């Protein structure tokens, strides 16, 4: 612990305290929204207008600008969720539990978007809405994992117990993450191999890659926004009997 500067430790201790997190996130929110808007607008303008059509797929490939960032986020959020779950289990930090469960709905949404947009891309290009190849099937399993986590959390009334159960489910499900990533290399699939995350240079032209990376960043910031909004609801509900929530309810309850 002595390797970490005192200031950082104190920052995390403060953040782990619910009222501080609530106030801090409130001040952070406008900045996040502005950054997200800038990234999304430039990314979409670059991807839908500036980027040239693909040499084989024409304009249909433009689905990539939401499909690929969503798919990346679906994996990234799951890893965040599992790490938060482990922290919650080991150190019993309430805020970690809240980050975990608040991530689940955002992660499920991104997985859903990746699956649906992939289907809408597959129909004109591959000639089918869906195939049971390793990549598509493992991504569908990821959606079920997210939904299972949301369902399990809702089914247990005591939220601290629910968090423990959910954390264990999330940690066991982590094995699916490398399977999704490497599925296109380990097995024959209809889905093509990786484009950007390759050892040699990405096999996508820079005019098409730049908007893709901008959109990926935009989705990361969006995740922060959605996570904070969800976490604040979760915090208020869990802390409903504490003084700071009562004060807040009187102030903001519109009375």
């Amino acid at each position: 612990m002595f390797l970490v500067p005192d200031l950082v430790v104190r920052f995390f201790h403060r953040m782990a305290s619910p009222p501080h997190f609530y106030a801090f996130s409130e001040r952070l929110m406008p900045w996040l929204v502005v950054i997200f808007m800038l990234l999304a607008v430039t990314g979409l303008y670059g991807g839908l207008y500036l980027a040239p059509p693909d040499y084989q797929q024409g304009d249909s490939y433009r689905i990539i600008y939401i499909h690929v960032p969503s798919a990346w986020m679906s994996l990234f959020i799951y890893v965040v969720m599992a790490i938060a779950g482990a922290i919650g289990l080991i150190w019993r930090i309430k805020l970690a539990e809240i980050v975990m469960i608040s991530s689940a709905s955002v992660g499920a949404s991104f997985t859903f978007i990746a699956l649906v947009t992939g289907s809408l891309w597959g129909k004109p290009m591959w000639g089918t809405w869906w195939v049971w190849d390793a990549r598509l099937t493992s991504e569908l399993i990821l959606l079920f994992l997210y939904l299972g986590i949301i369902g399990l959390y809702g089914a247990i009334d005591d939220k601290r117990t629910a968090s423990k159960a959910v954390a264990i489910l999330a940690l066991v499900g982590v094995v699916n993450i490398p399977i999704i990533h490497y599925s296109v290399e380990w097995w024959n699939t209809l889905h093509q191999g990786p484009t950007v995350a390759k050892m040699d240079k990405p096999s996508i032209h820079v005019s098409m890659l730049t908007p893709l990376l901008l959109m990926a960043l935009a989705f990361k910031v969006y995740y922060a926004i959605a996570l904070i909004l969800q976490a604040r609801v979760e915090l208020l509900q869990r802390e409903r009997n504490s003084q700071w929530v009562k004060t807040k309810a009187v102030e903001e309850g519109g009375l």
Partner: protein
Amino acid sequence: MKPARKQRLILIGLMVLGASLATAFALKSFNDNLMYFFPPTDVVEGKAPKDALFRLGGMVIKGSVERPDKGMMVRFKLTDFNKEVTVEYTGILPDLFREGQGIVAHGRLNAQGVFIAEEVLAKHDENYMPPEIKATLKNPANPPAGQAQ
């Protein structure tokens, strides 16, 4: 770290390790079922199922696409750069179907070793580039990155 926390950390580590091992063994034993298609080499060597539907994947050989009766029936050769299999298909081909493109066909072998496809899907590659760049890359001296399979 306090002993109780250390214990929980170890317990979680073991749990994830156990789940990974179990999954690895399961995937290994079902490996063949997870393959979406068979390459032409497997078909020529008789490893693909006979008298049963299966998927065959490979690249359409340049100049091999023909329409023998001038009708809907297409005949072409698929390769994995090792062995070749002739495919016959009657129906509408996907937008991406063209010579030199990867495809996956679903069907069965007939007595002559010709693959009679009931469905043809295009498998697009991982390269994205503007048409003009592709034209300059047509020069065989500098093939596009990742194109060699």
